[in-house]
């Protein structure tokens, strides 16, 4: 690498490393799965709380904020401690589920679960705020009076009307997952975070090039959100 020279060699070197693409795509996969699990968990929860259980809102908000007060290291050791032993039927030695840490799919399930927890504060807040801007209760009742069932109401009415919030939550979750190191390192997952961390240990320029690339990706994602949600923002503002 040339010192005191402006060039794109650091980018060339970083991108030519096969580990870069492999770990980055792996993290993308984990991020996509985490976003899907988060949406499946958070949207019905936030919807039901707004619709039928407003008294549970404070408790759920408190639970979703736990990742801010409990460090990720505690989460990962908790996961390892619980899921590194087999699940047995009580008082028998019949194994129900093998230790999740012992096989790849199991470890992926664990890390997606962990990432879902880490992303909860962002995803829940985004979705809840999105639902506040549309009157979900009245929209639900309007749809019900026209014969719609719960599945139709959520997929055709609620989800499209909170898509801005979902995209915001998804972007934040994506950013957390792609750069996350602690969970991935301790669970032995070959993700982008640990790769970047290791690269930083013995290279000077490539980590900076990759960090800048991830910023570009974030900007691109934000631009896409603006493009997709332009109409909806206009709708929300027109009253």
């Amino acid at each position, binding site marked *: 690498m040339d010192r005191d020279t402006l060039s794109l060699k650091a980018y060339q070197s970083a991108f030519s490393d096969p580990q870069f693409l492999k770990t980055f795509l792996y993290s993308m996969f984990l991020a996509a799965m985490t976003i899907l699990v988060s949406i499946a968990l958070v949207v019905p929860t936030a919807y039901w709380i707004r619709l039928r259980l407003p008294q549970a809102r404070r408790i759920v908000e408190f639970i979703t904020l736990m990742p801010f007060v409990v460090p990720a290291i505690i989460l990962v050791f908790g996961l390892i401690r619980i899921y590194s032993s087999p699940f047995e039927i009580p008082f028998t030695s019949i194994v129900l589920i093998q230790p999740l840490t012992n096989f790849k799919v199991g470890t992926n399930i664990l890390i997606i679960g962990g990432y879902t927890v880490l992303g909860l504060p962002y995803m829940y807040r985004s979705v809840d705020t999105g639902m506040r801007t*549309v*009157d979900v209760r*009245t*929209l639900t*009742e*309007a*749809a*019900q*009076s*026209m*014969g*719609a*069932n719960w599945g*139709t109401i959520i997929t055709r*009415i609620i989800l*499209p*009307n909170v898509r801005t919030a979902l995209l915001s939550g998804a972007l934040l979750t994506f950013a957390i997952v792609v750069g996350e190191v602690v969970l991935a390192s301790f669970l032995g997952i070959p993700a982008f975070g640990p790769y970047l961390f290791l690269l930083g240990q013995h290279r000077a320029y490539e980590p900076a090039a990759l960090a800048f690339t991830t910023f570009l990706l974030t900007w691109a994602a934000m631009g896409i959100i603006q493009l997709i949600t332009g*109409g*909806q923002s*206009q*709708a*929300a*503002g*027109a*009253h």
Partner: protein
Amino acid sequence: MAYLELNNISKVFGKTTAVEDFDLQVEKGELVSFLGPSGCGKTTTLRMVAGFEIPTGGTIAINGINVTNKAPNQRDVGMIFQSYALFPNLTVAGNVGFGLKIAKKPSDEIHKRVAEMLELIHMPEYGNRYPYQLSGGQQQRVALARALALSPDVLLLDEPLSALDAKIRVSLRAEIRSIQQELGITAIYVTHDQEEALSISDRIVVMYNGHIEQIGSPFQVYNFPETAFVASFIGTLNAFDAEVVDPQANTIRIGGIQLNTEESLQEHKIGDKVMIAIRPERLSFSSDLKKANLINSQIENITFLGSIVRVEVVIGDIHMFMDTFNNPFLELPKIGEKVEITCSRQAVIILNH
């Protein structure tokens, strides 16, 4: 058998009774308004018809079918909300055709029906617009078209005009009534606006504290209120505690004056307390035409209200309002002047407490 029957409906939320002993039969094609102040149970009753609340007691039947415990999406009921509740992600046509899509109607039929409905609300060219591109009145008309697209058995309107300005309210309520009559659809209309209820309804159900105070045509409810609440809630009213003087002659006394009423007081004894009411427009100056009851009074205040002039008179310690039509040549007495006012025997209404 009536088309919509609410039999002895009640609804209790925790320790609060929202609706109690509600009995109502609505005929096909009739528009019945639920009128009452906030918290009187009118919206709760409407929501029970829609299926959003399950009654604690009683039954609801539409066209002879018991729907009391049916889910909202299994009742053939259209609903219009105060906040319009148009789906922001769908166009006007998408909103109007939503129910038809759910019912899996063929797309040709959906297009045809949506066009019909948009024609009905005089918005045929608005199909591709989104709700945020419409005014409040237009949004509520789209909500009406959406509710009617499925040809529901019963149309429910929950304070549909409350969020609109006064002029639009008047024109839209006439439009709603005209469409309802044109289609012959059975409708329940919830409002706290007495003028709206009086102008749009075949019958009015006046509610207070979760129960029915009176059911009747707008004419009956306004002119012959059965309870003190109905009399005070609908229109302006002079209400007084009176004492029976002569039950045979139907004579009562308020303060120092005696009045005769057309209503029978034969069940009362001399000295019984009754509540009476006189509408301000039933009083007039005796110089115009002398009627059965004559009252000597003094002018306390005169208020100009546009089409009418409201005169406040005082008789001893009793204050009474009298309305007279405005005209440019009207000669009104001066404040403090002594005048004789008059009303007929029919104008003196005996109220149940």
